[in-house]
């Protein structure tokens, strides 16, 4: 049989199903379960990756692949899968990460032997992969909602995998509740579209639910009244926003991502939140037609706010995985900045710029998937080795687990948007689109672009600070705890998985012009333009803005040139320093007898200046307890605690929750237990109805 997407796609899905089954089958033999379920997942994801790449590179001429998975069950449900460029792109993200993570899990799951049931983990992991794959490929809103919910469900099960810890349970509940409310909004949104399309089609069959149908209708101006269009926009923004973790709907994210097993948190941060982005792309660019100005403005502002707040909160964390989770919020914000700008350009009828901004967003989507996955895998390896997520307990790991340290450093450089890696490229594109945007309008709104750019700069600078802290405190200097001192390098499969993602980072970073061609069919579908040629100069060496005077960059060139320039230090060494010797000595300790780890700078200390500068936001509290025997000058022990307040949680969510529970408790008074009262209810009902019937 020949290798085409049409043949690979079913293989992929089957693979996941098999993996799921295998996990459940071998509940009792953990080694077998681990091998089979994650093995299946790895292979399936590989197939998926190939399939998506093939269908993306097939060129715009190729017709999207359609599959009917199951016979239609009841009216409306049509289990059809459609692999158009957009689906293929997100399918690529899912499968690529899926591949790396499954590979990783083969090693990581060993950590659970004897403690937890690996079979269950494998089964749900496969289910999650399956559902996510179907989410980005579903061609029918009903089917989409179904797999969307299954995805949320399996994610919930995986988050509460280590449910013995109370915080895990509450995080799981918080996640599922918010996600379900989001789903409710999405459902309403799709029902609105369904209503409209059914009205136009004249029948409310499954076709009224098909994505292709929605897309086809966008040409028809009258299909959605502007009112319901805006309503749908808001509903989708909220619904998908919850999944994507935009501020202020993000509170579940830093709670849920850290407590999950690391391979799962990597998937959630890398892929799951991208399904929210997928939904927005699909709906905003594919279904709802030309947007009004305020959509773009809203999305851009939300993006900016999410980016800045996300990174600021990330800086305050000393739980490694929680820190990474907050960075997901930041990056989602950056993606949405691109989308927002794109929507604004679409409104102002600048398809070229709209395409550029959209590309920036999408490029950052895949970039974030890759490097955030990488970072979480690194964090997982660290957790695996030290059994703690608290950075204050780490340190000195660069010596003990060098490969992991290197991989994590690559991820850190990438996510801090430093050249020459991929984070820089996508943010460069974002800057370009914002910059070009200034000229597109004379309204005051255009100020949003440069200010957005400035805030983006702030964001990436803070991100750099945050990852200096994350990497420096975790991997450098002396170990701060026994566990860290005893740490060991992660097993091979875990390293391989990270290597795969590092390779992806480097490729996306150094060869953007190659990758941009992959996006062509996508932009063709969404904005009707293909601009990869326009963005390519010097036969692929250089990436340029839409007009080449607008600015150019070449990460590859920079890298090569940098390598050449390395000759200078070498020459200097030859000339001057050949005879110079190198000694290993102690760090200068101000004449004390030796440095102890307790003298090192801590994570909390590192971020203190920023905490002070942004006092107004963080409202930091500190508690210092000093104990001394006879005189305060001879303190025996000091306990220092610093807390920052998470405004949205303390000011919005907790009060809301409290109020709801209070109201419900008051309601319970109705069921007070007195028969008389119950009789009176019925009596009054009867009397009212009698009057109604008159």
């Amino acid at each position, binding site marked *: 049989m020949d290798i085409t997407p049409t043949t690979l796609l079913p293989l992929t899905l089957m693979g996941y199903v098999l993996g799921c089954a295998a996990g459940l089958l071998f509940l009792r033999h953990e080694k077998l379960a681990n091998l089979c379920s994650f093995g299946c997942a790895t292979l399936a994801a590989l197939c998926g990756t190939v399939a998506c790449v093939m269908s993306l590179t097939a060129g715009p001429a190729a017709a999207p692949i359609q599959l009917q998975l199951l016979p239609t069950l009841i009216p409306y449900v049509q289990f059809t899968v459609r692999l158009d460029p957009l689906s293929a792109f997100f399918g690529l993200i899912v499968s690529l990460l899926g591949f790396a993570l499954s590979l990783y899990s083969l090693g990581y799951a060993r950590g659970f032997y004897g403690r937890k049931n690996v079979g269950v983990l494998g089964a749900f992991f496969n289910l999650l992969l399956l559902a996510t794959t179907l989410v980005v490929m579903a061609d029918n809103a009903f089917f989409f909602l179904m797999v969307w*919910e*299954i995805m949320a469900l399996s994610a919930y099960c995986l988050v509460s995998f280590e449910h013995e810890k109370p915080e895990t349970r509450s995080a799981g509940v918080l996640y599922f*509740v918010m996600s379900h409310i989001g789903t409710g909004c999405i459902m309403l949104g799709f029902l609105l579209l369904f209503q409209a399309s059914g009205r136009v089609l004249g029948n*409310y069959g499954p076709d009224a639910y098909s994505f292709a149908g929605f897309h086809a209708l966008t040409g028809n101006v009258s299909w959605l009244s502007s009112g319901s269009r805006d309503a749908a926009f808001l509903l989708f923004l909220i619904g998908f926003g919850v999944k994507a973790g935009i501020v202020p709907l993000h509170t579940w994210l830093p709670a849920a991502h850290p407590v999950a097993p690391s391979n799962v948190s990597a998937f959630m941060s890398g892929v799951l939140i991208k399904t929210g982005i997928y939904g927005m792309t699909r709906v905003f660019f594919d279904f709802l037609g030309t947007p009004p100005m305020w959509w773009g403005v809203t999305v851009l502002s939300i993006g900016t706010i999410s980016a800045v707040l996300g990174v600021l909160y990330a800086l305050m964390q000393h739980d490694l995985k929680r820190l990474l989770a907050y960075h997901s919020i930041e990056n989602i914000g950056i993606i949405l900045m691109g989308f927002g700008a794109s929507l604004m350009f679409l409104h102002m009828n600048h398809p070229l710029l709209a395409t550029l901004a959209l590309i920036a967003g999408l490029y950052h989507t895949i970039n974030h998937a890759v490097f955030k996955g990488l970072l979480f895998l690194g964090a997982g390896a660290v957790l695996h080795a030290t059994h703690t997520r608290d950075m204050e307990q780490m340190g000195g790991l660069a010596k003990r687990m060098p490969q992991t340290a290197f991989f994590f450093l690559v991820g850190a450089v990438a996510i801090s948007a430093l050249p020459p890696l991929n984070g820089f490229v996508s943010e460069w594109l974002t800057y370009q689109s914002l910059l070009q945007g200034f000229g597109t309008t004379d309204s005051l709104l255009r100020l949003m672009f440069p200010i957005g750019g400035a805030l983006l700069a702030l964001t990436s600078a803070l991100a750099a600070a945050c990852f200096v802290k994350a990497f420096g405190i975790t991997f450098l200097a002396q170990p701060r705890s026994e566990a860290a001192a005893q740490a060991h390098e992660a097993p091979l499969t875990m390293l391989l998985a990270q290597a795969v993602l590092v390779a992806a980072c480097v490729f996306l970073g150094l060869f953007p012009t190659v990758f941009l061609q992959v996006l062509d069919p996508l932009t063709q579908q969404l904005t009707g333009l293909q601009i990869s040629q326009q963005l390519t100069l010097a036969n692929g060496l250089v990436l340029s803005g839409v007009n080449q005077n607008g600015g150019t960059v070449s990460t590859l060139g920079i890298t090569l040139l940098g390598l050449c320039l390395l000759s200078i230090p070498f020459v200097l060494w030859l000339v001057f320093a050949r005879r110079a010797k190198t000694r290993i000595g102690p760090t200068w300790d101000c004449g004390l007898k030796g440095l102890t780890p307790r003298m090192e700078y801590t994570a909390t200390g590192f971020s203190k200046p920023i905490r002070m500068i942004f006092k107004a936001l963080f409202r930091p509290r500190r508690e210092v307890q000093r104990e001394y025997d006879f005189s305060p000058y001879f303190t025996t022990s000091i306990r220092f605690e610093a807390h920052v307040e998470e405004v949205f949680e303390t000011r919005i969510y907790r009060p809301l929750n409290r109020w709801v529970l209070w109201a419900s408790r008051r309601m319970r008074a109705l069921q007070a237990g007195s028969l008389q009262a119950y009789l009176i*209810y*019925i009596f009054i009902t009867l009397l009212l109805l009698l009057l109604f019937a008159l």
Partner: protein
Amino acid sequence: MLLTPILVIPPAAALLCLLVRSRRLMEGLNMLAFAATLALGIRLLHEVLARTVVTEWKEFFYADALSAWMVLLISAVSLGSSLYAGRYFRRDLAAGVVTAGRVKEFFVLTPVFATGMFLVVLANNLGVMWFALEATALSSVLLVALYNRKTSLEAAWKYIMLGSLGLALALFGTVITYAAAVGQNGNGRLPSFNWSHLMTVAAQFDPRLIKLAFVFVLVGYGTKAGLAPMHTWLPDAHSEAPSPTSAMLSGVSLKVAIYALLRFHILTTQCLGTGYSRTLLLGFGLFSMLLAAPFILVQSNLKRMLAYSSLEHVGLICAAIGLNTPVTIFGALLHMGYHALTKPVLFFAAGNIHQTFHTLKFRVIGPGVVKVLPVTVLFMGLAAVAAMGLPPFGLFYSELTVLSGGFAAGRTFISSLILAALIAAFCGILKQLTRILLGARKVERANDATAWDGVPAMGLLVGGLLVFSVWFPEPLLQLIHQAAGIIKGKS
């Protein structure tokens, strides 16, 4: 001869149970009886599909698609709970919670209870339907009071008082309907009180009388169906009854009352045209849903929470029928079926938990039930996921179908309210169940004897649920479509 056996077999079983002494034999008899009715039900399904209506004894017994659907549900749930009852009472006897006499009482009354329900759905004569319903009420009251605890007596008392009050009102409504049927023509002979006959002449009824009648019927049967605000007996009875009974109460008897209500709804619609009865149904349905949610959110007792969730589902069914489009009604019937397969499992699991921890209070049970009863928790989890309306289980389809129908009919706001109520209930159930099922707990001793309690029953129902969620047999689909057509009426 198809309907008669359905109505004869269970009481026969009851009589035999009265005579025999061995408990196992009683269990066997119960199971046998309900297995038989289930088989007959399936045959009935085909009969009905073949010749839309099956009647016996000069139309005294009358079965159309709607009745056939109900028969299937009743027998399925009864079979499930009789499967479960065996192990359940063996444990209770071992624990000395009940006496052998009470157990006998259970095995005698359950078939009677079921017979009542069968009669409700198979009787053509509205009066007969009424007293059949009363019979179910009376038999189930004694079942609720089975444990003879203070609380269970209280529950039974409230149930009987409110129930028979409601039924009295319903009877009044029935009488008025009959009066309307008799109407002007004071000629010598007594007109038939058969539903099928009334449908043919409904057009000439005095509309004002029918209006009046429907009010009383709604309040009356609504009480039995647990529509808010007449639902107040429901959580008490469902939480205090032995779990097999709770399963039957929640699984079918509510829906049987709805069925009775529907017959009148159809009649009324026939007479007054759409708009009157369906508005009332919609209103009460919505009110029930919205009322149930907060109670679930802050509930402190497992079975009470399940009861409130039943209230939620009943509300959804009524509201869907109230929306009165073919799609929503189809969804409602589908929902009836799926809910009938789901809720009993939850009650069975709750029963196991109750017997293991000797309480239903969340606080007392505490976290980590999964460590003690892994199998039970597995089934409960599946059923709970289904009851929360998540895919891949059928309730997701039925709920989304209802919503779609609502939107298709342009009832945007109402449908949104329904969705909101569903979400609220979801949050409640999720919160509460996570609280007890998951978590760490020191297992004093792994008790394998009780580990597999009730697995056959739960397996049967969950299996059915799963099967019907991914594959829906064509005849059943036709049947539901037919039933929906009947409810929709000609208009």
